[in-house]
């Protein structure tokens, strides 16, 4: 895959031709692996309790919690019936997902404050351990991609 076709570079606004010598092109393997990781967390075959539409809504929500409207718009396109959950002000109670959104929001914005109690709250709400790991992976990948995109947006400064 040409790396300028990856979600990460598109969202960072890097859409020009990259020469073979560009430092981004030299890390081509990393951008391609990042795209594969995105597919693994957003569209896994074994999606457990959280289907692809819900995962896209959660991803877009995490983007908005990080003030990244452009990447949020990318993910919101596939949020389907869960579109309302993209809004960080939505508590998720209409979908019986309040406990999931509380966890997602805290891990995204205040990971240092997460304790064992937060995991126990999910378990008491009936979330199975594999699904807790799935939520953590989705949230963690988004933390990575959002920061990678934020850093890459600075690269335009290098060229100017």
């Amino acid at each position, binding site marked *: 895959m040409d790396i300028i076709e990856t979600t990460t570079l598109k969202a960072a606004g890097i859409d020009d031709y990259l020469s073979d010598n560009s*430092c*981004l092109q*030299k*890390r081509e*393997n*990393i951008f391609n*692996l*990042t795209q*594969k*990781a995105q597919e*693994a*967390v957003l569209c*896994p*075959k*074994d999606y457990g309790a959280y289907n692809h539409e819900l995962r896209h809504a959660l991803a877009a929500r995490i983007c908005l*919690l*990080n*003030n*990244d409207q452009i990447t949020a718009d990318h993910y919101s396109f596939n949020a389907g019936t869960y579109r309302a959950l993209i809004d960080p002000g939505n508590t998720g109670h209409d979908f019986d997902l309040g406990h999931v959104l509380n966890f997602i929001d805290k*891990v*995204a*914005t*205040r*990971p*240092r404050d*997460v304790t*064992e109690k*937060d*995991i126990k709250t999910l*378990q008491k709400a009936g979330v199975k*351990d*594999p699904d*807790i*790991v*799935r939520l*953590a*992976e989705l*949230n*963690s*990948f988004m*933390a*990575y*991609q*959002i*920061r*990678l995109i*934020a*850093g*890459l947006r*600075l*690269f335009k*400064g*290098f060229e100017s």
Partner: protein
Amino acid sequence: MSELIKTFTREVPDWKPRVKPVSLDEATEAQLDALKVTPSNTKVSDYVLTLAHDVESLKVRSPLFNAIMYDKGGLKRSERELGAIAASVLNSCIYCNAVHMSRHAQLEKDTSVTDSILADGENAKLADRDSAIFQFSLKLSSCPPDVGNEDLIVLEEAGLKQDEVLDLILSTALFGWANRLMHILGDPVEPKK
């Protein structure tokens, strides 16, 4: 019961999962494949067994992690570790911080940088280039990320080339990911003697 570790350290702790890891006896073929379990290699950490609940992510994450931290060229290894340390300090991930402080000290054959971070955390006083790297990574790790062109100028003035800045962004961002697994899914505990 193992005692929880609550402060930053360079001594690598053990890690106690908050969820039940996959049991090798009950693992699926896909999980065994991702874990690279063979009859002669059945030693797998609780951390990896925990992540095996989401086998598709696990399978992609390991090569990505290795590429970002170890691929040749660009930013030197210890400075990638410093990006990881800054993220781990900001996110309060004691386990990741210990692993990468320990690696930084080994690679540099010197503990002065990590001694300073252990003493003063985000306010550590470091030499110009290390300080530019550490402060940039703290800002990139925050929520929302808080980096702008002025931060890029500080890195350039400290001598970082474009390819080095890219590697710093990658290693810092990667620990936004790693911290949210290690710190969320388990606790650092005193290592078994």
